[in-house]
């Protein structure tokens, strides 16, 4: 694949739309981090819409008291899949899309450390997502909540295959995530450009690194929990059988030992994005870079010590409750530190009021609100009233939607020009922002009151006359407008692909290395690997001749060839999952066979061929 024949534009940087050309087979066998990033992004956004649809159905049902639009059984499936989809199939892969596309560029590398492992992670995620959603067609979707508490999830109380879809799907997604995280850890540690010490790395890369460590350390805990549950369901073990001495709380512990770090896995990439955008749109380096880095590390570390705050109402006793209360309050501190650093960056900066900055500012405001309600839950005593009510639902959505999604949208507006080579409409972006901001608050702010007035979570309806009607109606109306606002974004993307202005290498005046490449970058990223001398290489006076431009004098670097083995290996694992789901051993063996074929083919295929 070679650069397009376009004549040299400014500085010799050409647009490399050929980076994406080639038929379906070239996409199925790709090991290029940029294409993998695009595939993650498209899949993630698709599932975001699916999860959003599930939410809208929930809101329609709750719009009026004693509604019969959705029956209890379907309702349980909807809120379970809404949560599971948004966490595992939308936010995580959306972050992965950015890790994939942006991090190698930001560190001045040509790809990740293990390109085929990267492809494997994507295909396993994609097939796992399809697997889990196939449940709708085969007996119903999982319906025990996104955290599947034992022993509601036992075969006694959850007969059929629904929970098996959930358990197996999550195990598959776990393997995908761990593989991806391992890849990014090695990439960031070992493939940085010359001169790029850890303390010169872009913030987004830092947060990616920290998130990756969280993933590899946290996921094994839920893997074990899922294995215990799967064994109970499939082999009749007694791990969560109270009559046999089993403890249902063990599930909760294992789930939340993973689950709490998981929310930081969801959050930190967004924090990284905002930490990139605010300096660029303030024309000022990030204030307190080191503090922002160390606070990220501290959040990750402390994140392993707060999990039982999800269990304040189960009866752990005053000692445990007090300890976890204290650690939970502590963790607000490093988050606060970041917020102050962003504000200090904006202060005195020359602000460019464009869409990425709007979403970043919206993120800060909404995340503060979500953080405040979070600190309120940190008190075990107060949480006894709040837990399992809509007060928690409000908190979750302020931090995950108002927080993470606003930050990820900021990232989309910021980096889509780099990915596609075209500019989105700033006017439409700002319209999207305002409608989203207002409707988001209309949807979720009333839920604080609903919660404090006693409306429980995960219940398909509520009686009239309890005073819940007005707030629920407000929330439902808000959610409809919020859903509609996504159409503005989709229209913007569609318009951009037809008529968007060419972006050029650095439309925002960014300081980090991804902005020194073409938009989209050539498939090899850099002809000559860059050398950096500072945190903001593109803002530094002396950029050096090894950095900019696509020097045609240097031959195109040789890149790893495509491979079908990552996909085959992923298929093998999914076949094993199907075999386990249907308890047909022969299918499991076929899956193992395909897996081994994929692994050996992979091991013996040279990287460059």
């Amino acid at each position: 694949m070679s650069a397009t024949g376009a004549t040299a534009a400014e500085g010799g940087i050409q647009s490399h739309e050929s980076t994406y050309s080639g038929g379906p087979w070239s996409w199925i066998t790709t090991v290029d981090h940029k294409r993998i990033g695009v595939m993650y992004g498209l899949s993630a956004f698709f599932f975001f819409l699916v999860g959003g649809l599930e939410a809208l159905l929930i809101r329609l049902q709750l719009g009026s008291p004693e509604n019969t639009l959705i029956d209890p059984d379907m309702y349980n499936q909807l809120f379970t899949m809404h949560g599971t989809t948004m966490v595992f199939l939308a936010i995580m892969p959306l972050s992965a899309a950015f890790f994939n596309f942006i991090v190698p560029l930001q560190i001045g590398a040509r790809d990740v450390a293990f390109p085929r492992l990267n492809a494997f992670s994507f295909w396993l995620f994609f097939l796992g997502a399809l697997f889990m959603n196939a449940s709708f067609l085969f007996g119903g979707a999982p319906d025990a909540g996104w955290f599947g508490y034992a022993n509601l999830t036992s075969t006694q109380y959850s007969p059929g295959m629904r929970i098996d879809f959930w358990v197996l799907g999550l195990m598959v997604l776990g393997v995908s995530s761990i593989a991806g995280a391992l890849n990014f850890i090695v990439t960031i540690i070992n493939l940085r450009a010359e001169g790029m010490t850890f303390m010169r790395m872009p913030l987004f890369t830092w947060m990616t690194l920290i998130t990756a460590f969280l993933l590899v350390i946290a996921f094994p805990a839920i893997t074990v929990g899922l294995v215990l549950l799967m064994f109970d369901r499939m082999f009749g073990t007694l791990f969560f059988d109270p009559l046999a001495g089993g403890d249902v709380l063990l599930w909760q512990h294992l789930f939340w030992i993973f689950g709490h770090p998981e929310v930081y896995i969801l959050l930190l990439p967004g924090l990284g994005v905002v930490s990139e955008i605010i300096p660029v749109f303030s024309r000022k380096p990030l204030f307190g870079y080191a503090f922002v880095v160390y606070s990220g590390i501290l959040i990750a570390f402390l994140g392993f010590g707060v999990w039982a705050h999800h269990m304040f109402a189960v009866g752990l006793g005053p000692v445990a409750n007090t300890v976890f209360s204290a650690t939970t309050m502590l963790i607000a501190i490093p988050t606060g530190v970041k917020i102050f650093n962003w504000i200090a960056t904006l202060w005195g900066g020359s602000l460019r009021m464009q869409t990425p900055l709007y979403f970043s500012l919206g993120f800060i405001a909404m995340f503060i609100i979500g953080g405040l309600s979070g600190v309120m839950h940190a008190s075990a005593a107060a949480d006894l009233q709040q837990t399992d009510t809509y007060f928690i639902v409000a908190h979750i959505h302020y931090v995950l939607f108002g927080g993470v999604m606003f930050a990820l949208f900021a990232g989309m507006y910021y980096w889509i020009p780099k990915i596609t080579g075209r500019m989105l409409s700033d006017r439409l972006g700002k319209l999207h922002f305002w409608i989203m901001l207002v409707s988001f608050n209309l949807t979720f702010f009333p839920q604080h009151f609903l919660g404090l007035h006693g409306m429980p979570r995960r219940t398909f309806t509520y009686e009239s006359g309890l005073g819940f009607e007005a707030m629920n109606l407000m929330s439902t109306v808000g959610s409809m407008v919020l859903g509609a606002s996504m159409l503005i974004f989709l229209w913007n993307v569609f318009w951009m692909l037809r008529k968007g202005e060419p972006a050029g290498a650095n439309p925002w005046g960014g300081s980090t290395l991804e902005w020194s490449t073409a938009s989209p970058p050539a498939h090899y990223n850099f002809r000559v690997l860059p050398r950096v001398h500072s945190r903001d290489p593109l803002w530094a006076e002396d950029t050096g001749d090894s950095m900019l431009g696509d020097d045609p004098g240097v031959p195109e670097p040789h890149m790893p060839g495509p491979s079908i083995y990552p996909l085959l290996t992923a298929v093998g694992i999914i076949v094993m999952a199907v075999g386990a789901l249907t308890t047909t051993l022969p299918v499991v063996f076929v899956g193992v066979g395909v897996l081994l074929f994929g692994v050996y083919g992979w091991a013996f295929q040279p990287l460059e061929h």
Partner: protein
Amino acid sequence: MEMHSSTGLSSRKILMWTFIGSECMLFGSLITTYLVYRGKSVVGPYPEDLLNIPFITVTTFVLLMSSLMMVLALAAVQRGDMRWGKIWLFMTALLGMVFLGGQVFEFSHFVHEGLTLKTNLFGGTFFLLTGTHGAHVAVGVIWLLSLFFLAQRGRLTQANAETVEIAGLYWHFVDVVWIVLFTLIYLLV
């Protein structure tokens, strides 16, 4: 593709060590489950009825010695002595298989005595924890035998010393996990 290294270290080695770190959490969670449920079984058989310390001491010794074989294999390959490299690789795998044989023997004896996965919490946690470890040993044996066959065909040479080193890291870790399990399950009954 020129993949320079910021740290001067091998990417594959960094990958394996990070993976091992992740495995610490996996086995940590399994061990937690085992210890949390120890003494909580409502019906027998109980550990003191079944655990055979002398037998397991022998298999533990076998696994420890396999780690010795592994370091000798690596040392041989590193100095280019592929003949001894192959021998030690095979010996490592062989001792691994002996260990697995011992596990299979122990498991079938327990089943014979009335302990299965679903009998009680001891059965569930014991078989899950030691079974997961055994599965890791099995993967290691397959890996080592693959390296042995490659070496037999002349396709594994001194230049591939790092590949052997990485397999070795995995193997030793599996041994280290057993050191912990031997103490926690068998000796601290």
